[in-house]
């Protein structure tokens, strides 16, 4: 037994802290961000052991000058890039209107994806009809870029008489099988093993469809994250396991979920799952990486973990004020910039877009959103106008209503 006094001194607990708190001046000038175009692009069937470093870097395509460079460039044609810009602008305009609607009391709750638009919008383009997303509450971009009706999203948010979910779900917890969008839960991480199960079912059935699971940096700490990875690894499920690292889980910085791990992507390695880390604010890079991982799943080569490095510019939801836990200026100095600005610069540089066209389209899309909002509000908002029937509250608990619910519905007098 040692008598070294150093071994008898009191232990101390480590509680990680973010670099900057309110009052600090955030500075990321020393944060290493790999230059665009510098990360290699392996073949999808390459031995994952040979590209482990891709979990520790950041795959980027758009450089500071707005050019697409490197081995991950060249996958997005001009038409898709223009569509991507418009999709992201629509998501941002939609979020702005719905955030305001919540502030006006037209709904109880809202969650925007400000600054993260590129991830869902670009990923959706890498899937085929019939594939299935198991999203979190911040992937509205999947629906909007997939052409789901904006009015129906608003009807859901307002819980009005046209709500596709009959007022049963919290605002923004959409569901659309037709659009490859699994019903959103509110419990974190549960969708991750479900995505793996769906993908396993596709493989069991000899189908060609693939699944995509979505989770945030904070929720990777959930047991279900690890359940999903072990199942995906064991059965080589055709699934892309997306981790959106937007740095903040409500007020908790990503270091609390990540602990001593190098990156969230690298968690995949412990399960033998290849992992890529990508600039989530770079539409072209997100699409290229998504396409790669989806192809890998489709070719029965197994799951891929993808970490999107991004920044949650807004609050977690309408229920928190980020100024209480992080510097207000932090998003302004965030080193990966704004996804819309970056794709815009790229398109301007290629002569396909201009500041004027941008201003004009912004007005057009805002008008489109406003028109949809007016249409939705004709069918009611949470506390005014048309509502789902109270009688419906008892429907759909089971396929057929059991006697005890019939009795309760009678007692409720509806």
């Amino acid at each position, binding site marked *: 037994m040692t008598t070294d006094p150093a071994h008898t001194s009191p232990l101390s607990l480590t509680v990680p802290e973010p670099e900057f708190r309110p009052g600090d001046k955030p500075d990321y000038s020393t944060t290493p961000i790999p230059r665009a175009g510098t990360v290699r692009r392996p073949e999808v069937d390459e031995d994952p052991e040979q590209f482990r470093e891709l979990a520790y870097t950041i795959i980027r395509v758009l450089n500071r000058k707005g050019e697409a460079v490197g081995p991950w460039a060249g996958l997005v044609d001009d038409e898709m890039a223009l569509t991507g810009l418009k999709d992201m602008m629509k998501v941002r305009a939609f979020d702005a209107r719905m955030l305001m609607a919540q502030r006006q009391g037209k709904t109880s709750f809202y969650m925007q994806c400000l600054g993260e638009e590129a991830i869902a919008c670009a990923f959706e383009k890498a899937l085929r009809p019939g594939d299935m997303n198991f999203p979190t509450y911040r992937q509205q971009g999947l629906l909007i870029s997939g052409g789901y009706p904006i009015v129906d999203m608003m009807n859901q948010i307002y819980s009005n008489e046209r709500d596709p979910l009959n007022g049963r779900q919290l605002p923004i917890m959409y*569901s659309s099988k037709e659009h490859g969008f699994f019903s959103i839960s509110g419990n974190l991480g549960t969708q991750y093993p479900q995505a*793996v199960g769906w993908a*396993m*079912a596709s493989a069991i059935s000899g189908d060609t469809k693939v699944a995509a699971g979505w989770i945030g940096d904070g929720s990777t700490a959930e047991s279900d994250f690890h359940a999903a990875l072990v199942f995906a690894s064991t059965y080589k499920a055709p699934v892309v396991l997306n981790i959106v690292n937007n740095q903040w889980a409500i007020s908790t910085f990503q270091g609390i979920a990540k602990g001593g791990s190098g990156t969230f992507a690298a968690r995949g390695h412990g399960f033998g799952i290849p992992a890529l880390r990508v600039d989530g604010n770079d539409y072209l890079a997100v699409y290229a990486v998504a396409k790669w991982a989806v192809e890998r799943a489709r070719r029965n080569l197994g799951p891929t973990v993808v970490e999107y490095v991004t920044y949650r510019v807004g609050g977690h939801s309408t229920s928190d004020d980020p100024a209480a836990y992080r510097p207000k200026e932090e998003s302004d100095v965030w080193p990966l910039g704004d996804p819309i600005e970056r794709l815009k610069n790229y398109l301007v540089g290629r002569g396909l877009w201009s500041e004027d066209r941008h201003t004009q389209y912004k007005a057009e899309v805002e008008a489109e959103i406003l028109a949809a909002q007016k249409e939705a509000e004709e069918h009611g908002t949470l506390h005014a106008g048309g509502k789902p029937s109270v009688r419906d509250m008892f429907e759909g608990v089971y396929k057929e209503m*059991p006697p005890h619910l019939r009795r309760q519905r009678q007692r409720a007098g509806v």
Partner: protein
Amino acid sequence: MARMTMIESIRSAMHVAMDRDEKVVVFGEDVGYFGGVFRCTQGLQQTFGKNRCFDAPINESGIVGAAIGMAAYGLRPCVEIQFADYVYPAYDQIVSEAARLRYRSNGDFTAPITIRMPTGGGIFGGQTHSQSPEALFTHVSGLKVVVPSNPRDAKGLLIAAIEDDDPVIFLEPKRLYNGPFDGHHDKPVTPWSKHELGEVDEGHFTVPLGKAVTRREGSQVTILAYGTMVHVAEAAVAETGIDGEIVDLRTLLPLDLDAIVASVRKTGRCVVVHEATLTSGYGAELAALVQEHCFYSLEAPVQRVAGWDTPYPHAQEWDYFPGPRRVAEALTTVMEDV
């Protein structure tokens, strides 16, 4: 017809279901190559292939979570949780996901899954292999909860559960796997081969969910029981000579209230029996319903017989288990209390 233990009839149910519908898949811990720790899935992998019956990692949340995803795809998974005591890591997936999916998506997605698990004590399993957690599931809207008491019902109910379009919790009283245990732990158990309900149709048949059955007609008191306690109640009736009517509930959710009300209105007395702990147990729901619906027929207060509100002990198993003596005491009390 063939003589089957409850293990064999449960296996037969899965075999029949898998044979009829290729969407039925079976998985869980040790259920593939080995056939399950209680051997309920023995031979299924060999018959239907690894694609349809396979071993799962030891992760109950993953098992149920994956099953939900498979069901959303269009399969009909029947998964095994090795012991009901191990289900708690999967509770979130069962309660927040499987049970709520149809409702929250307005029918866009559903979870037609069956979650089998051995339940109850009587095998010296201690506190982690003996629990009866049915009340944790009967409290959840969107679930169905089934507890069979014999091989014939087990098969018919399990096929009905697998074919049902809603999630079903299927609790298998493990003390009944090999015979109709009546609580007399110091006496040899009759094997199912000597019991009428051990004779089971080898083909496809169902026992409808939500329907109770009267195991013994009687005039003096209604005994509401399910699983192992049906046989314990039979022993108590035989030993006391009290003419009890034994209603085997079979499905706890949805409950066959009509059968309960008809019986209690006839007998005017009621004893509720379960192995699970007393407080907030399913017996409380039964007693409340009897009071609500049969108050003016009751000649005496409803009695409850249940496990004590302690963890399931090891050495004191037979002091804990609500055997025939405790049921007999309740029968005597309910008959005296005029």
